[in-house]
């Protein structure tokens, strides 16, 4: 991954099946670089950045990277040898969205295919500014629309969980498109009763702008191409960044009684901006459950195109990380965080900032490094603010008692939001009540 996208031209993304490695990749005119995604059957086995010369990437270039994909390919062959048919659990796909109707319009056709195959899909519209999302979803009779008035990604996630009745709830972002086989690959792991969460591989949908390229290089969701298993005996439970991300994950409902719901004081829509998924992963590990990273569960994510949006995202990651770490330190009493958070702040945040100031090769632009570091600094305060806001809104009439860090085995969907009880909305039905304020 040696890329330095300090130009404004786009990077092509091309999939190459390893059976075709002896052929050039053509028709890349207008691109200076290409991200080649190596595939073996339905799985991605590796990616590599190549310079584009004369509008193509040559077979020789491709083959030079092949040793990197050997292990994933091999492991896939081995996995198929031992494969035996298993009963997949029932599932509901939940898409949480907020004022991103254009992105959703791209992914809904793919999600509708899942719905056609009998997998209920819920779109949770989180505090929308207008009814455009509602009108969009109304065009897909197989997809259920749910209106959630309270702003917050974790609030929307919890709402999705409460509106579903299946054994597993799979989450995908509104700006991500599932690949063929995404859902089955996630579900395959739930026959292990200790698996509470399965995360998948997320690759960029496009790398048109500098912002998208930088995001992919510095903060991409790619966690490798080999299946991994995490539990509290093998990883530090507070280092859940390596486990995966909420953009592409599936959660076992029955484990929520122990783990608790998503913390509604965290993640997008609240002052903390992110971290809800990571904090949830932490609780899953701390409660003795296992998390599987399954690269065969592939989604394509559209990174933010504008530099400003990228900076805001990176800032949000800084805030979210230290927000959930503060919560985990004080509520979860994970005292080792005092050490890890300090170490990470010095090595990662201050280190990155210093490298950017000194313009070391491969360093991030100064504004990104600064945004992330500043986010980390104010993260703990932001969590406090967010939590206070949550507690106040909980005192408001008609709002349910959901804090996320509490264990609430019984879904109190009847008191949530200003919406009629969940039972009146048909989850598996053709069309949920389209309600717009």
């Amino acid at each position, binding site marked *: 991954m040696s890329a330095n996208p300090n130009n404004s031209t786009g990077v092509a993304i091309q999939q190459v099946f390893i059976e075709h490695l002896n052929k050039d990749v053509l028709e890349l005119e207008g691109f200076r670089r290409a991200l080649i995604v190596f595939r073996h059957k339905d799985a991605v086995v590796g990616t590599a950045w190549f310079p584009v010369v004369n509008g193509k990437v040559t077979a020789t270039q491709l083959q030079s990277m092949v040793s990197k994909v050997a292990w994933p390919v091999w492991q896939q062959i081995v996995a198929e040898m031992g494969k035996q048919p298993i009963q997949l659990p029932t599932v509901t796909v939940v898409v949480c969205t907020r004022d991103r109707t254009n992105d959703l319009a791209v992914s809904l056709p793919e999600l509708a295919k899942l719905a056609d195959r009998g997998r209920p899909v819920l779109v949770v519209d989180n505090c929308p500014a207008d009814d455009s999302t509602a009108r969009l979803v109304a065009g897909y009779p197989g997809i259920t629309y749910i209106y959630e008035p309270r702003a917050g990604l974790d609030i929307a996630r919890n709402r999705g969980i409460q509106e579903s009745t299946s054994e597993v709830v799979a989450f995908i972002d509104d700006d991500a498109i599932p690949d063929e086989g995404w859902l089955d690959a996630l579900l395959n792991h739930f026959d292990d009763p200790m698996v509470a969460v399965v995360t998948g591989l997320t690759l960029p949908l496009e790398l048109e702008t500098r912002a998208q390229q930088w995001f992919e290089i510095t903060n991409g969701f790619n966690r490798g191409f080999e299946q991994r298993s995490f539990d509290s005996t093998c990883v530090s439970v507070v280092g859940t960044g390596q486990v995966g991300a909420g953009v592409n994950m599936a959660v076992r409902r029955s484990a929520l009684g122990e783990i608790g719901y998503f913390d509604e004081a965290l993640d997008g829509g609240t002052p903390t901006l992110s971290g809800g998924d990571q904090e949830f992963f932490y609780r899953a590990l701390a409660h003795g459950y296992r998390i599987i990273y399954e690269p065969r569960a592939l989604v394509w994510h559209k990174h933010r195109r504008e530099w400003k949006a990228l900076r805001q995202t990176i800032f949000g990651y800084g805030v979210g990380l230290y927000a959930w770490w503060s919560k985990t330190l004080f509520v979860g*009493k994970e005292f080792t965080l005092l050490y890890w958070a300090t170490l990470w702040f010095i090595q990662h945040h201050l280190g990155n900032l210093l490298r950017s100031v000194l313009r070391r090769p491969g360093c991030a632009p100064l504004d990104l490094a600064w945004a992330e570091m500043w986010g980390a600094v104010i993260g703990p305060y932001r969590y406090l603010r967010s939590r206070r806001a949550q507690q106040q809104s909980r005192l408001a009439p008609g709002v349910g008692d959901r804090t996320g860090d509490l264990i609430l085995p019984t879904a109190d969907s009847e008191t949530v939001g200003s919406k009629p009880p969940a039972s009146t909305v048909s989850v598996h039905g053709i069309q949920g009540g389209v309600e717009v304020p």
Partner: protein
Amino acid sequence: MSQTHLVSVIIPTHNRSQMLARHLLALSRQTWPEEKFEVVVIADDCQDETADMVTMLSSQLPFNVQCLSHSARSASASRNLGTTHAHGEYYLFLDDDVLPEPGLITAHLRASGENRVVMGHSRPVLPEKPSFWQYSARLWWEDTFRAMRMPGYRFRYRDFFSGNLSMTAALFHRVGGFDTTIRVRLEDYELGIRLLKAGAEFCFEPEAVGHHYDFTDLRTWLQRVYKEGIADIQIGQRHPELRCILFADYEDVRADWGRLKRLIRKVAFSWVQRRDRITSIGVRLAEICELLRLRGPWLHIIGALREYNYWRGAAWRIGGYAELASWIQEAPIAPTVGVDAPLFHLDQPESLEERQTKLELAQRVGARAAWQGKELFSIPPLPGYEPLRYDHLLAVFRQEARRNFIPPLALSLIQRKDLDLSVWPFNSQTSI
């Protein structure tokens, strides 16, 4: 299996009348017809109202229940006693703290066979505020059961968990029931050895679910580990051929902390006559680590404590280091694979007869396995394991292949899938 067989559910219990009452009520909700099973409760040295409770409850229960009392302080003696009063063709052994799901008996009987031992799935239930140890124990149990469900799993005597287990009465009596001279623990393992020797077939039935309310914690567990050390020596005395696998990791200094293990063993053997302070200090340390959520150090302490207590038990039973050494001499650790061990080419077809002959030979001298002409691994003869089958070899192959085999092999496989390999840069780069 038609529902014409009478099943005897045998439940040993000790001062747990409340749990037992819940258990009996759970049994009254079975999908298996009530008139087709009876329950034998063996109250072992019970100081509480167990016997009265069973008598009182029996009028409300839809099945026959009898309660025997004795004081042997031994689960296996209780189970043996239970069988002498049981009338069923099948014995289903349940622990008093394993609450059965409604389908448990049906699932056991569906999986049963004349020569079969059926293990049910006892799912651990955690207490209100679980400790680190309880979390990791749950993971251990569930992983153990999950492994048994995998295709090609090779059962061994240590998979014999008598808390949720059934077999025919004929099989039980043919091998002579539980050995009550092994009093401390692992009597079930010892019966497992005899069953495997007698050619019984082990199987795991994932639908025979019981909920295991086992609130053991660190200290109790270390006690058990201590008894495990004692019992392993006893097992080694009764079944000398098993010594080689009982202490399989005895010489293992390659392991991360092999040297430390040896030191711990030395301490355990030299300390055995004195009062044990090390365990209580260690447990205290582990508790401090847990309070501070220091999971890494906690794991190391637990590992060391386990090692120490096991060898302390073994030392107590065998006497001294010299005795243990002479034992090991008699039956060498790490049974070797004979030079004449049959080689299985896992990627090549062979006739069933040919395979069967090789497997029989492998049972005595071990097996070697190759893929594309390259020898990859070998399996020594393993006493205490079920006879080697071909799918066991495949399972080991898959297990090893995930991490330990080499990409060149993968590449040669890819090659067969019509890929032009001549241009690939690395045919012989890596070695095994």
